[in-house]
């Protein structure tokens, strides 16, 4: 895609060693992320979907260098994140933030909201002193829909949705450009979920934020994303604009995944053509040879079992990893 990309991920790999025995000898690797490539444009949202264990969260964390990548490049605004010196990385940390799934365990229960949100501001010298920090915190939590007097309260005094607002405020505190939302709305009730999604959208419009939105909920991803990537056992099997992926999915896995999402129309009950895949997701410690989806794919052919399909650009900006992409 064009030069406006804020983030370019090239052939990113993250292997976790499997250790066994007394001397913790490495006997194998969990290939959580195995060579994925994509770009995120400035001010846009990239949705990352897939089943649990497919490597979505690992991708997000490796990009922020919360995990050490095994191989590959993450270019953030022209700088290679993965080769960066520690001191420079610290500076870059303010430009990227993450919001986690569980707002109950990701907030320190012993700190009041003003310290949770303000800590990073002081650390990175965005504000000179505690007094200004407090003013700035009140401004930010206000943006996230909390009241000034709530700045002195502790996390246990808030509901799940409010806690997620605190997490968002904390991420915004250092004026980031890029935020990884790792299942940020998955743990919330339906009525609260829509509030948070709208908040994320408003903040994006207002502050020009770029999101990597990781979720297993396809309807939410469809709603919030500009581009969508579909992951399966460490591979990015299909990647393109939201409209292309949802209206015209090509990879058999994407098709199956989309058809599995429950529809809201009770009249469609039993009528929709659902592709129900047999079996379970294979283990990334011992992924199938060739195309990783071949064990469950309805269109499997001998070549799929032998050769890993290339990531091909079928139409401009629509990438598919499938041998038979043209004929499907």
């Amino acid at each position: 895609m064009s030069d406006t990309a804020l983030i370019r991920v090239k052939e990113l790999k993250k292997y976790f060693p499997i250790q066994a025995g007394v001397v913790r000898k490495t006997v194998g690797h969990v290939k959580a992320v195995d060579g994925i490539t994509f770009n995120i444009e400035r001010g846009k949202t990239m949705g990352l979907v897939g089943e649990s264990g497919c490597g979505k969260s690992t991708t997000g964390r490796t990009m922020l260098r919360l995990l050490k990548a095994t191989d590959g490049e993450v270019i953030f605004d022209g700088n290679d994140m993965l080769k960066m010196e520690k001191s420079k990385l610290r500076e870059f940390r303010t430009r990227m933030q993450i919001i986690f799934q569980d707002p109950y365990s990701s907030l320190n229960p012993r700190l009041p909201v003003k310290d949770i949100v303000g800590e990073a501001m002081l650390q990175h010298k965005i504000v000179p002193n505690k007094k200004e920090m407090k003013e700035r915190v009140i401004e930010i939590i206000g943006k996230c829909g909390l009241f000034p007097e709530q700045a002195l309260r502790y996390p246990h005094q808030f509901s799940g949705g409010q806690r997620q607002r605190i997490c968002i405020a904390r991420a915004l505190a250092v004026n980031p450009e890029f935020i990884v939302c790792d299942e940020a709305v998955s743990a919330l009730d339906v009525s609260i979920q829509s509030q948070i999604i709208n908040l994320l959208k408003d903040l994006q419009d207002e502050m020009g934020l770029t999101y990597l939105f990781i979720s297993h909920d396809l309807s939410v991803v469809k709603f919030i994303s500009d581009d969508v990537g579909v992951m399966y056992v460490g591979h990015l099997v299909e990647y393109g604009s939201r409209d292309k992926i949802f209206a015209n999915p090509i990879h058999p896995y994407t098709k199956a995944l989309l058809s599995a999402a429950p529809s809201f129309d009770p009249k469609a009950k039993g009528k929709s053509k659902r592709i129900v895949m047999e079996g379970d997701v294979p283990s990334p410690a011992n992924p199938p040879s060739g195309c990783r989806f071949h064990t469950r794919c309805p269109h499997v052919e001998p070549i799929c079992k032998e050769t890993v399909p290339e990531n091909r650009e079928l139409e401009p900006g629509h990438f598919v990893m499938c041998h038979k992409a043209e004929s499907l």
Partner: protein
Amino acid sequence: MNENLNNDLNNVDDVDIGAMMVPESGMPAVGQKKEDILLDVKGLKTFFHTDNGTVRAVNDVDFYVRKGETLGLVGESGCGKSISSMSITRIVETPPGKYEGGEITFDGKTLLRINENERYLLPEKDMRSIRGNDISFIFQEPMTSLNPVFKISKQISEPMMLHRGMTKKEAHEESIRLLDLVRIPNPERIVDEYPFSLSGGMRQRVMIAMALACEPKLLIADEPTTALDVTVQAQVLELMNDLKSRINASIIFITHDLGVIAEMCDRVVVMYAGKVVESSPIEELFESPQHPYTQGLIASKPDMATTEKRLHVIPGNVPDLTELPGGCPFHPRCYKVTERCKQEYPPTHKITDEHIVSCWEYNGSGISSEGGEEA
């Protein structure tokens, strides 16, 4: 299935009362009665007395389940949907929980009747012959609801040996048949595995196999697919639909996911803060939701077809059950709130035979969804 044994068990402790009907021994099916209602819950109240006050988790709830029907119980966390279903089989922990009122009739038997003059609970011994036998449960967490130290075969066999009087060997063979029925590959091998070696979807299938072991009349599925991926969820839902038509059981399907409700259920009960706010056949609920909460709930979930820029929002938070607002508990979040809503709990209006709604704004012709604000 071993009808005689069940009835014997039921007859042993028939301490009570005229109103309690015992199914006659030897009758082939109980489904031939004039009433086709299998479970009737009226005015159920289950409260929790905690140090922080009384939590009115289930507060005057009515619903019923017909034979062969799938009823959806939908609502957000803390609305009382799980506690309602747990009250039916009386597996709410007491104390702190306490059944404070109501009447539950299952298959002609009174399981619970509590009012000012009477406090009748079906004796525990009789309840045990119902639990896992006539009424069985599937829980949300397949990870924690299987016992990690017993093999799969032992866990599936247990209810069959207990309720159906099978020998260990018979039960083992039946376990293999059930695992095959829920489409677990290599059931002969899996039956000797421990739960940790199975994936989430497989464990949920084992749970379903256990629930089906005694051919229950009522299956209560409490968020059975919430912890699963969509693709596995699709497999499990398809399996449940298939099995339901095979064993002709009724299902109470508890979930917060309206998509799953639309897929699975014949009728829906919408709960909010321990109350039933609306109850309706499935098509009617999605076409013309009446209660402002139901309307908001349906509108706030992005459908796969949604194209709008913003989502509809129900403002505010799910209320704390120890400090419920007076009147209609939904009033602080309702866009149609009036003075009366803050004072009194609204009456229940009957829209059609099956469609009821509890709201002051219902005037006989429906509640318009206009004026829904975007907060």
